[in-house]
């Protein structure tokens, strides 16, 4: 009978998959499609309650559109640096790759920092989770997104650390590509949230 090696450490080639796609990539796409529905349900909740707060502060009272536009731009720019990181990884220029990954993480941290500042400002202006439906839906929706960005930052920093310790298994471009998929997804979601929450006027002044 055959011998099976359990827990072997030698590097073997990825077995060919039925679709030709690596398992991780397929899993990432499935996961992200699931995430689409997660954010879909959260955004739906926000839209449903838009303009139905009974007491202030209302969105127009607290939003600082130019400020949030800048931080949104920072997050969008991080998608570009992410692409540059991947392209460097594919050229096996791992120094550049780490540099761009770090830049991406820094941009992400700037965004999250901006969000923390914004939340604090809102709380100071009297808007918190319990104030009204706007506070409830706003903080939970953008907070969920902020947690996603934070997880992304952790992954980016881990990539840098693993790369420096030479602990990335197989082709380093692959994990960079996977983290990139996640990162771009989180960015795209922010474009939708930014549009829906900040840019589309509520009409009633609420």
């Amino acid at each position, binding site marked *: 009978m*055959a011998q099976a090696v*359990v827990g072997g450490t030698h590097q073997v080639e990825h077995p060919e998959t039925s679709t030709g796609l690596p398992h991780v990539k397929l899993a990432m796409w*499935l996961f992200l499609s*699931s995430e689409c529905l997660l954010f879909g349900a959260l955004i739906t909740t926000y839209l449903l309650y838009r303009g139905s707060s009974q007491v202030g502060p209302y969105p127009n009272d607290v939003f600082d559109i130019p400020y949030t536009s800048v931080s949104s731009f920072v997050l969008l720019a991080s998608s570009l640096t992410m692409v540059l990181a991947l392209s460097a990884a594919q050229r096996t220029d791992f120094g550049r790759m780490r540099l761009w990954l770090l830049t991406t993480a820094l941009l992400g941290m700037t965004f999250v920092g901006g969000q923390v500042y914004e939340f604090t400002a809102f709380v100071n202006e009297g808007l918190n989770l319990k104030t009204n439906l706007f506070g409830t839906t706003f903080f939970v929706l953008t907070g969920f997104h902020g947690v996603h960005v934070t997880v992304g930052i952790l992954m980016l920093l881990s990539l840098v650390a693993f790369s420096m310790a030479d602990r990335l298994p197989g082709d380093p471009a692959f994990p960079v590509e996977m983290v990139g998929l996640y990162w771009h997804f989180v960015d795209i979601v922010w474009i939708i949230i930014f549009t829906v929450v900040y840019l589309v006027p509520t009409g009633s002044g609420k």
Partner: protein
Amino acid sequence: MGSVSVAAEGSRGLLRRPTANTGFWSWFTTVDHKKIGIMYGVSSFVFLLVGGSEALLIRAQLAKPNGTVLSAAQYNELFTMHGLTMVFLVVMPMSAAFFNYLLPLMIGARDVAFPRLNAFSFWLFLFGGLFLYSSFLLGGAPNGGWFGYPPNSVTDPSVGMTFYALGLLITGIASTVGAVNLGVTIINMRAPGMTMFRMPVFVWMGLVVQLLLVFSLPIITVALFELLFDRRFGTHFFDPVVGGDPILWQHLFWLFGHPEVYILILPAFGIISEIIPVFSRKPLFGYQFVVFSGIAIGFIGFGVWAHHMFAVGLGPVANTAFGISTSIIAIPTGVKIFNWMATMHGGDIRFKTPMLFSIGTVTMFIIGGLSGVMHSVVPADYQQTDTYFIVAHFHYVLFGGAIFGLFAGAYFWWPKVFGRLLSEPLGKVHFWIMLIGFNLAFAPMHLLGLQGMIRRAYTYPETLGLGFWNFVSTIGAFTIAISMLVFIANVIKTQRRPQGVEADPWDARTLEWITSSPPAVHNFDEIPIVHSLDEFWHRKYAEDKSGKLVPVQAGGADHGGEVSHEGGGHGIHLPGPSYWPILVSFGFPLIGYGVIFDWWMAFVGTAIILFGFYGWALEPSAE
């Protein structure tokens, strides 16, 4: 059995990789899909006994008018936990048990796509279930129904519904991870030649179920988070006092909840679609029709949710739309039943226990399906909703359909998993007692509901005239309990005997029967190459020109026994066992307790998860 060498030298991980593949402790670190499948099966069976005991208490309370067995508070906890247990801790994980064990074998793979994630899913499910049950000791179990409608579920002062939200979030993460894993396995790890339309129907149903999970669980995740925030952090998602709408929860819940019904029933449909052909000795009639109807059920399942809400007051337009979509979903379901009948037609039907349970599934599901069609007649549903008529309906679907189907699978694959055949006489006794008990318990509920018995009521007055059929129903419930004892006796008796069943005791059709019973740790010595649907059958039998079956002479088939030599023989690399999945999953219930009681536990939980993931990522792999 060949020697299994374990190499763990040069480990650079945070912890040494565990090495044992046998013995008690190996179960905690295993990443073998077969062992994980067995653990899913055992845990969900234990939960079945617990949830069943809750049902017995409920039936004891309702046996007579003005029952005094339970208090109102206990009753609300028990019927809520009964529902949660049966849906999330029995039928879902028992289906996961079959998927885990069988999918890789049926598609000719050595394991699932992500073995460690697979272990993680299992432990997270188990810890989520235990977390939910710990609520009995920690301030009260969930008591707002499995459907958890706010505002009642938010305003209830006991801690139960917080456990509900967190417990379901934890098991939901487990299911999502499991669904991604098994979905990738099916799509990506099929043996050479195993095209999508050569996959067994069970694998197809597995794929549909995983996709349903991936797309429906995020919706209830959001709903549960909103409920949790309302309860714990004072938000107003479902708070009518400041303008929130409790109906939002109902939409989100049923947008998950109805696909969930198909998540519960499609595995059983897949199981009996494998069993009926084997014991009729005919191929499944209209394979593609059965597959496509399963896919159609999955799709339409997302468009019928508001039929749970006909009495909410959504208005005639919505009720019309959802009434029609609900009746449409009966069509692909009916197709399956006719196809199973046509499969048996003209066959050589052998009434082995798995076949009996499969026939039980079909015949009982028909009853549940017909009462389901009655609900699509919306005005009739105005009377039936929230009554025992609905209780009868979904027990015919989920017990008569899913549980009978899962037992069919248990009897059918027991020899493959444990190398021993369950006793046929005891199995038949089990079947008949369960069938009689089931119908005694649930058929009277149709009448009870139509005659005005509401659901979720801990008591009813004598004047309603409902005593007789309630008493009959209680007798039926205890009869079901007896049938479970027969099954347990059968298992004990069987497991005491030595192993030694041949690879293919039923003369079956699919790939899992090629390999030994139980299969070796690497499943197949050589990965088979697939040339047709029911590959194994076609290696054993050919058809003559008139469609009659002719046994293939050994070695006489064109391609009998052909295998893929890629990676075959020596040096099959399987992932080693790992501590990390169980460790990481342990962090989640800690976060849950932290949210309820004290934040430091949540920080510890988060730290464990982060530490665990880094250990996981840095674990020296077999790759």
